[in-house]
């Protein structure tokens, strides 16, 4: 496949709040005063869906938004293509404020700049796999031949070749979501919105789909916003992760930040269940060399997980391994002891 340029569309969410209820505008002052979700529900009968969200999502990366049900994550992703209108705030995509667009501009924005994958697939049941996949291009008014050509390429890419004429009902959940993914990718929009896209799938199929997504992303470099309630999934996919609780962001950062420095007990309680060896990278726990001599002939590249580094040490004669950068130059060293320590959560759980 030809080299596809990295998406240029970063997403900037600024001061976004959403109130559900009879008269959301009247609630704005309370939101600005910092009223919590529970207080607003009790005193004014309005539901505070999101409060003062500020996220900067880098172009061409996967931004994961993680939270439990009711945290407002699905509401948040729907603000990006304005399936839900915010009460206050800005959503800047490539510098343009989505909130200010009129209906025509919004429709054009949805057609050309975004594509979406849904938790419940939301395929058109009366259309075959092929006809579902061409939907976005059909709405854009692209000539039929181009529609089919693009659709067939992505149907093949997601592993559905041979199923073009099947109806969604004839496919398993995993295959249906492959159709959902192919439909979104066929649109070739710079932004891909994935709302709990893999949550409805069996664990094995979910892992499988994550691999498919990461594979494809390494080729197409879209700006992906991925919603999930599963921290393992978030850590595996996310270049950056934001954790949402009761409509507020409690922590943002890379997977390393989240696992090594959880912001509060809430995040900590998630992180405790994570397989640290597969998430933490050697860079976070190694001793920098600062031009010193490499202590071991055995090397692992920067970005290796703790688990793989242990594997490398066990296979060799020494209890230490050298970490090298992208050019193969040594940048740090890490001992078996340091690796073992990284596996133990640094902060003891508060309630034990």
């Amino acid at each position, binding site marked *: 496949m030809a080299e596809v340029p990295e998406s240029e569309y970063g997403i900037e969410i600024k001061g976004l709040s959403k109130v559900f209820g009879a008269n959301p505008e009247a609630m704005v002052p309370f939101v600005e005063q910092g009223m919590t979700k529970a207080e607003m529900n009790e005193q004014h009968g309005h539901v505070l869906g999101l409060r003062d969200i500020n996220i900067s999502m880098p172009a061409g990366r996967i931004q994961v938004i993680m939270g439990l049900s009711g945290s407002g994550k699905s509401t948040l992703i729907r603000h990006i*293509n304005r*399936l839900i209108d915010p009460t206050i705030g800005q959503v800047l995509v490539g510098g343009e404020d989505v909130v200010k667009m009129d209906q025509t501009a919004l*429709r*054009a*924005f*949805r*057609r*050309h700049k*975004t*594509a*979406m994958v*849904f938790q*419940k697939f*939301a*395929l*058109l*049941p*009366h259309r075959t796999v092929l006809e579902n996949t061409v*939907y*976005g291009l*059909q*709405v*854009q008014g692209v000539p039929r031949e181009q529609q089919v050509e693009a659709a067939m390429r992505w149907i093949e890419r997601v592993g559905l070749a041979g199923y073009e004429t099947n*109806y969604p*009902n*004839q*496919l*398993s959940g995993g295959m249906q979501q492959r159709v959902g993914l192919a439909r979104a990718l066929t*649109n070739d929009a710079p932004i891909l*919105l994935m709302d709990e896209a893999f949550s409805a799938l069996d664990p094995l199929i979910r892992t499988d789909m994550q691999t498919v997504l990461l594979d494809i992303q390494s080729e197409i470099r879209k700006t992906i916003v991925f919603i999930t309630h599963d921290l393992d999934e978030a850590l595996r996919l996310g270049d950056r992760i934001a954790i949402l609780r009761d409509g507020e962001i409690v922590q943002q950062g890379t997977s390393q930040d989240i696992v090594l420095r959880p912001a509060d007990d809430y995040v900590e309680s998630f992180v405790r269940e994570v397989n640290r060896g597969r998430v933490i990278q050697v860079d976070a726990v190694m001793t920098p060399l600062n031009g010193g001599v490499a202590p071991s002939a055995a090397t692992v590249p920067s970005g290796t997980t703790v688990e793989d580094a242990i594997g490398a040490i066990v296979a060799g004669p020494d209890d230490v391994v050298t970490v090298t950068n992208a050019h193969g130059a040594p940048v740090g060293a890490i001992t078996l002891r340091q690796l073992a320590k990284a596996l133990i959560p640094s902060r003891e759980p508060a309630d034990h």
Partner: protein
Amino acid sequence: MDWFFNFPQLDNLTLGALRRSIDDGFRVFTRAWGDPIESFFEPLRLFLIYSERLLLDTPWPIFMLVVAVLGWLASRRWTVVIGSVLSLGLIGFFGMWEDTMRTVSMTFVCTVVAIVVGIPIGILMSRSNRVQAIFNPILDVMQTMPSFVYLIPVVMLLGIGRVPGVLAVVVYAIPPIIRLTNLGIRLVDRDVLEAADAFGSSGWQKLRNVQMPLALPTIMAGINQTIMMALAMVVIASMIGVQGLGQPVLRAINNQYFTMGMFNGLAIVAIAIIFDRISQSFGQRLQKYREVVHG
């Protein structure tokens, strides 16, 4: 205490004057607007005549063949085909072919008018709760008002004949198609609609690509109901000069011809069943994609 036991009503004089003035008003309206309204319905009259002539001029074996083919295409079941051909054969054998053709033509025209008028109204109702609130009571009136009652103004306005017959039948038969179009569109899965929105569909694209196809099975059920009600009403419409199987039934009632009434009544039942089976199985075949093959 008289008012307590006898309802305090308008006195007969006032009531009579009220009726008379409304009647007079309508008569004036009829005189002033009768001709323009009649010419407005002229295309409908031509359509009726054309359709009736077509059916009457078609040789009977060809008509039976057409019904058989339609039955097969819609249902893919031999029982439907054989049943249709057999009942048409019996109808012809007992000398009711021409009347039956007139009734079929009338039902066909009424159904087409009901679809053309009813589906857009149903779509409008599905798009706005206010429009729905306006139309629902009107539909209630259309369905419950005794059909003879609205025959009166129609006859006053347009006289006796086919066109007023069509109007009376359509008024009676159109509510199910309007209601079920509205219902079918409102029942379309919200998730799918959201997906259509997310890909930037316009209102028209959403209607054409998502709402209408997914509502179609429900709409087909409405069309089926409309056909059945149109057939039932065609008999009553014979009172205002609509030709067909209703006329002999009317004569049979007036003269107590038991057998004549029975034969023609059964002929109506037979074509009702043919229409019903063909349109219903077509509706079911539209839903083939719903069959779950994968568990």
